[in-house]
Structures are given as C-alpha cells and as structure tokens.
C-alpha cells in the first residue's frame, strides 16, 4: 500500500488528520485547476472551498479500487466547474473531437523570455477550446498524468494526448504573439 493509499484509507475511516494531509496535498492543485478553468480568482476560491466540502462529505464512500484518489477528487472539481458554468448560463460545449492541429506554426523564435504572469496565463488558457483548456488545466494545473486526466474526463488516453498536443501548439502561438 502506498503512503497516499494509507492516508486515504485513514481518511475514509474518519481520521481528521489524514483528511488534513490530503487537504494540504491537494489544495493548491485544486485551486490551480479551477483558476485555469475559470480564469478568475474569486470564482476559483469559491469553488475550491466547495470541492473540499463535497470531498469531506463523500470521502466515507470512496473506494480506491474503482478510481485513484486524485481522479476522484478532480472529478468532483470538474463537476463543480461544469455546474458553475451551467449556473452562470455559460453553456460550455466541449467538443472532444477537437483535435485539428493549428495550420500555422510560428517558427522557431524563442519564447522562453516571454513574460507571462499567472493572470495572463489564465487569460491565455481561456482562449483555448473548452476541451483543450480542460486538458491543459488538468495536466499543468492539477499535475495529473494523462491516465488520471482520462479517468476524470471519462475519455481515453489517446484523446487526452491529442488534445494536449494541439493545445500546446495553440498556446505557443498565442504566447509568441503570432496568433
């Protein structure tokens, strides 16, 4: 049993300190994921709070064998984001076949010196298609593996990799200012 499995199993049984360790481990990642999805601090803070409240209420029913803990937690976060958009009447239709690569490559210019603040990053990510944004938020914000991200979204890993590839190409173009 891994250290995390041990902590999770303790939390499932009602150990407050174990839940606290999970909270410490995942707070920044959950916040970061939601921040990148929503693009605003206030909304991200509200939803982060709600995700942990939901997790605390539901953790007694969590079973490791069905789903890795990170995927379980981020599925809660993902559903909260979807609900948020629904309540805001921002219908976010995600096209999972959004795999068409951008037609223009900006060339080999260096973008490593490009100044990009966190807010700018969120604004840039917001310009991606919903499916690409979801994948980038899970991979870079939540730091999930492709397999975990696929679990959260209920997609196959190949789809996640394709979306990731196209999203990175799009982001490169945007960050290089050539889009």
């Amino acid at each position, binding site marked *: 049993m891994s250290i995390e499995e041990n*902590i999770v199993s303790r939390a499932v049984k*009602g150990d407050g*300190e174990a839940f606290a360790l999970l909270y410490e481990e995942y*707070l920044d990642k959950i916040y*970061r994921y939601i921040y990148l999805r929503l693009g605003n601090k206030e909304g991200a803070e509200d939803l*982060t709070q709600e995700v942990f409240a939901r997790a605390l209420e539901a953790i007694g029913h969590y079973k490791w064998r069905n789903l890795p803990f990170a995927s379980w937690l981020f599925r809660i976060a993902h559903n909260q984001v979807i609900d948020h958009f629904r309540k805001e009447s921002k219908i976010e239709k995600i096209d999972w076949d959004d795999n068409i690569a951008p037609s223009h490559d900006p060339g080999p210019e260096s973008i490593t010196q490009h100044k990009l603040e966190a807010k700018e990053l969120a604004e840039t990510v917001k310009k991606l298609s919903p499916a690409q944004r979801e994948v980038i938020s899970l991979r*870079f914000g939540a*730091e999930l593996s492709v397999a975990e991200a696929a679990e959260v979204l209920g997609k196959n890993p190949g789809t996640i990799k394709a979306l990731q590839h196209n999203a990175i190409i799009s982001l490169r173009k945007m960050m290089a200012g050539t889009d």
Partner: protein
Amino acid sequence: MAQKFEDILNSCLERMLQGASIDDCLEAYPDQAIELEPLLKTCSILSQKSAEIRASSELRKRVLSHLQAVLCAKPVSARERFPLQHRRWAVALASVLVVFAAGTGIFTASEKAMPNELLYPAKLASEQIGMALTFSDLNKAKLHTQFAQRRTVEMTEMALRGEDDAVFLLSEKASAHITQMKEIIETESTRAGKGAATPAPAFSIPPGPAPAESGTVDKDNLVETLNADYTRSLHLLQVALEDAPEELKPYLERAIENLKADYGRTISIMSSYSNS
C-alpha cells in the same frame, strides 16, 4: 505519425515533470528535436507559471473554516458528545491514535520529519488542521496527548543532535499540549458532574534559559528547565488520569510511560554534555 509525435511529446513532458531538462528530452528524440524544442519550451513556461498559482493564506483559512462548518452541520445527538459516544470520525480518529501510541503506525514522510527539516512545517500544519477538524473534546484531549508525545520524541532526537535550543522549545511545546489536554479533561469532568477536578498545584518554572545576547541555551539551565517541565507534565498527566473517562486512561498511561522514557533519556544526554 502524428499519433506517434503526441506520444513522444507526452513522454518528454512526463520526463520534464520528473526533473529532466529540455536538452535531456531532445537528446532522447534527436529525429524529432526540431519539432519538439519549441513545444517543450512552451511546456516549461506553462509548468513554471502554473506553479506560481497558489491558494492564498486567506483561502486556506476560509476553506478550513468552511470544512468545520460542514462537520458541525452534521446532526449530532446529545449522547454522542463527551465522554463515551462518538461519531464515526471521532471513533476512527481514536483507533488511529492507538496505532500511533503503539508505535506501529505507518507514518508519512512529513510525520517523520524532525525540527529544522524541510517537511517539519507540513507536519505541524497537518497537526493544526487535524485538531481543527476534531470536534469531540475527548478526541482533542487525545490529540494533545499524542502531539505532546511527538514533541518529546523529537526533543530526544534533537538532544542527540546537540540542538539545545530545539530541545528547550520542544519541551515547552510538549508541556503546552499536556496543559491543554489537562484543561479539557478538567472542563469535561466538571461538565459531567464529577465536580471540580483535582487542582494542579502551582509549579515554579525556572526562567527560560535563552538569553537574548548569546542566543543559545545554557546547558545546566536547560537540564534544570527540562526537569521542571518533566515534573510538571508528569503531574498534570497523573491528575488528568484520575479525572479522565475510562476510554482515555490507556492513552494517558502510555503517555506517562513515554514521557518518563523520553525526558529521562533527554536529560541524561544533556547532563552528559554539561558534565563533559
């Protein structure tokens, strides 16, 4: 071909997340290096900038406060309160404490951390959050007892390492936990109708041995302070043992044994230093 490149890109990304450099990845895939390089640079920026997005301390407090409210909102009948009946959370917490007290628990990396180590703040933070998420007074008393024992274990380790200032501070912290545990039991004992709990006598604690000028702890003074802390803590634990509900007594008995062993060892180490 395109599919293959996606796999390569992802493989490089995974390696970078594990600490590999862009150059490492390009060397691993020389045929794709030209195409990979700009994308990996973008990934590097994304990764760095994402890591800068962190929950503020206000949000941490707010989430914690909300979690407490969520737990409070769960219906709890009067008989589930101190001293005997507990909610599932509290019962499970107690079982984990037994494991810790028995010394067979599986500790996480931060739970093993010692003062001055990188993960030690995480250990203290998880203790604080665990305490905040514990509602039963009985379980709070158990946690204080457990944390006091952790501090005395750390104190002994710091004595072995010759970290005198840390020994002093950890002894103080252990005492503070035991005092808080004693206060909880006293309050609950009074509430349960046992009348006023046995009063703890006033102790004369030697002044703190960390003069501002030197910034270090005098060893003789430290041994004296440790003896005073030990006597006081032992007394508080023994008084608490008399007033505590049956369920808590095994924890306190074990804590007394651990306290004797840890302080005995620490004082012996410090005395050998001061005599040499």
